[in-house]
């Protein structure tokens, strides 16, 4: 009993200390001229390379205005929506981040998420808080467009009925379609479709499959793969036996697109390999190995690659390269653009309240950013529909053509 009592005392004292320590550590909210932007992206785990680049883009946008909009100082905090025990985005952490952002009244903008699945969790929370959310990476169409996902989407993400979620990337229902059209224009007649069974990968593969059938491309097979498998040699053998012209993989670098490309080569299978923008990062080429993708891999991307950006885009690329000592990854420009749009709206709104800023963001029209001139439509989607088809040459992405215009 005595031991028990001691334990209770120790527990009570230590928690009291902990509480007061945390309370001390917390900054006292006195200064009201401070506004905060929060980003929520998966930083622990395999998407890290891409998300770090997005954060660099966001920081750049804030640095460009010297951390000030009007009279307000802008603070930025990059939250991690992944957790070490999952090594990937974690619904609990994403919800926590969204709650944290909605409660802290100095937060006026939420840049995120990277994974569409994560947005499904945080959208309703932020919607109720009336906090503007701009995603640099979500391409699952159901988040914004009625009729493209489940019957109750996107209504369920907007409990207040208002739109607070915006994105600066074109959605998969566009990208999958142009990918299939591009394949046809390259003379593809038989295709084998794979997907990683995740929200993004399966979604875009579904669109690709549907459009391919409409275009009269023969779909030889459709399979979900296990992205954690150590290799796909057996699958490659199976694909080789039906001799498709093209293998389409709805997946990302994180779900092992590189390995699939590689194993198709290793099995001496000859089809071209097409992937969506989840693979549009140098890590994909690194993972697949130059030799396995040079000239045979095609990557669609919901925008123009960094080296095709002109005007502001080119400026961004050069500045980024100078500042961080490396070329920006594909999504860096989207992080930058998302933050830029937000800052610009804040400047227009001349207010620190969320509703005003939300409205200003929604009213964004003909924004001239690094991605060209675009607006947000009634669903919160970008009107930017310029997409690009890319291939790999000498271990580098090479722009082929503009798609979907």
């Amino acid at each position, binding site marked *: 009993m005595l031991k028990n009592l001691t334990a209770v005392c120790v527990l009570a004292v230590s928690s009291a200390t902990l509480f007061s320590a945390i309370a001390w550590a917390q900054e006292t909210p006195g200064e009201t001229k401070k506004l905060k932007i929060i980003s929520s992206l998966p*930083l*622990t785990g395999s998407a890290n390379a891409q998300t770090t680049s997005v954060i660099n883009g966001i920081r750049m946008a804030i640095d460009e205005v010297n951390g000030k909009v009007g009279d307000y100082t802008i603070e930025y905090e990059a939250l*991690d929506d992944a*957790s*070490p025990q999952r090594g990937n985005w974690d619904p609990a952490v994403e919800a*926590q981040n969204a709650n*944290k952002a909605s409660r802290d009244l100095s937060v006026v903008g939420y840049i995120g998420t990277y994974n569409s699945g994560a947005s499904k969790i945080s959208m309703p929370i932020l919607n109720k808080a009336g906090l503007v959310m701009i995603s640099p990476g979500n391409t699952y169409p159901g988040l914004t467009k009625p009729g493209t996902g489940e019957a109750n989407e996107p209504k369920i993400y907007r409990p207040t009925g208002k739109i607070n979620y915006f994105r600066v990337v074109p959605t998969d229902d566009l990208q999958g379609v142009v990918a299939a059209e591009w394949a046809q224009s390259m003379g593809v007649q038989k295709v084998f479709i794979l997907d990683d069974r995740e929200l993004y990968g*399966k979604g875009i593969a579904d669109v690709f499959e549907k459009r391919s059938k409409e275009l009269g491309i023969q779909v030889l097979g459709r399979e979900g793969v296990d992205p954690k498998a150590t290799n796909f040699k057996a699958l490659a053998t199976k694909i080789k036996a039906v001799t498709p012209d093209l293998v389409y993989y709805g997946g990302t670098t994180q779900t092992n697109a590189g390995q699939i490309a590689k194993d198709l080569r290793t099995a001496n299978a000859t089809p071209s390999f097409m992937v969506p923008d989840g693979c549009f990062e140098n890590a994909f080429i690194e993972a697949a190995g130059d030799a396995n993708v040079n000239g045979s891999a095609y990557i669609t991307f919901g925008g123009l690659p960094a080296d095709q950006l002109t005007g502001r885009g080119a400026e961004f690329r050069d500045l980024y390269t100078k500042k961080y000592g490396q070329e920006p990854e594909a999504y860096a420009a989207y992080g930058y653009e998302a933050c830029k749009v937000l800052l610009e709206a804040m400047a227009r709104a001349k207010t620190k309240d969320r509703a005003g800023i939300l409205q200003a963001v929604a009213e964004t029209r003909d924004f001239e950013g690094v991605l060209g001139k675009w607006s947000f439509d009634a669903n919160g989607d970008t009107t930017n529909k310029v997409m690009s088809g890319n291939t790999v040459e000498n271990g580098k992405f090479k722009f082929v053509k503009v798609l979907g215009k």
Partner: protein
Amino acid sequence: MSATPVWKKFMRIDVALLILACLLALVNRRLGLEMVDPMRGVMVFAILALGLNIVTGFTGLLHLGMAAFMAIGAYAFAISSCDIYPFQLGFWWGILFTAIVGAFAGVLLGAPTLGLRGDYLAIVTLGFGEITQDVLKNMDVITKGTQGINPLPAPYVPWWSDGGLIIFEFASDQELPWYWLFLGFVVVAVVVCRNLERSRTGRSWLAVREDQLAAQCMGMAPVPVKMIAFATGAALAAVAGGLWASMYSSTGEPGNYDFQISILALCIVIVGGMGSINGVLVGSIAMIGIANIALPKIAGAMQNAGWIVSGSVFGSPNNWKYLVFGLVLVLMMRFRPDGLLPAKLSLVSAKKKNQVESTP
């Protein structure tokens, strides 16, 4: 046993934790702790780990597939209550149904496999976890695949407001009602576990854990005993899953209920102290607290202090999370191998017990 004074009966760790939990709810906002929200996750995991504690702690069966029952719970809750399915039971009936489905799933897995000894059972549970995930992912006609099922109904309670009785439905942005509700669930789970532990069933669990052969010789049939443990544990895990899904108003992707979750639950039980209910509570605060409260706070503080070098893998505090989490586990076991609050009730002396455990 000497009589203990009445006041001492209240000096219990679980009661102390309950008081602290209540205090936390009261001071959270004032001190800007931002801890009520993550504490809901801690409580869900506490219920999950209490379930595992029955299987692993009380009955001594290593279980590596707790996440599967959590997933089954989440999906059972979703299918029974989401408005795209015909059942629409609502929160409370949904949770009840979830518990029943969970128990049933436990029996279903246990029936053919509980005859297996030791770690063979562990690997069967692991396999079950993997299969469950795949089935949920691939049977997209029913489970919506990786879309997850949403929206899910929020809990509701009758509430006295403005002089009349109303049905108060929880909104997802009100953290305190959820917090109290989950705390209530934890309290109920703890009470259930305590009573079970002291019941005839509970004692037979301990008997099977300590020495199955001896228990058998005393006329006890080990398989039904284990089966009850399995079913109870699975039911608790399923409830945890249902609450989890309800909290996010979505089941999320099946991939959310992977092996890592099972491992985390196991770590909670062992770090807390096998077979100790208080231990499980402390363990879940420690483990989930470290992963979801402390590490983000440290990362945030480092960011605010400007300790970030972009472009280097070492520069971001987030890249250190695995290391810190792993070190904590290793160190805890190094210095408290019996867990933070080891179970006191042991039928065999500690020395003898180790001997029993070390024989294959």
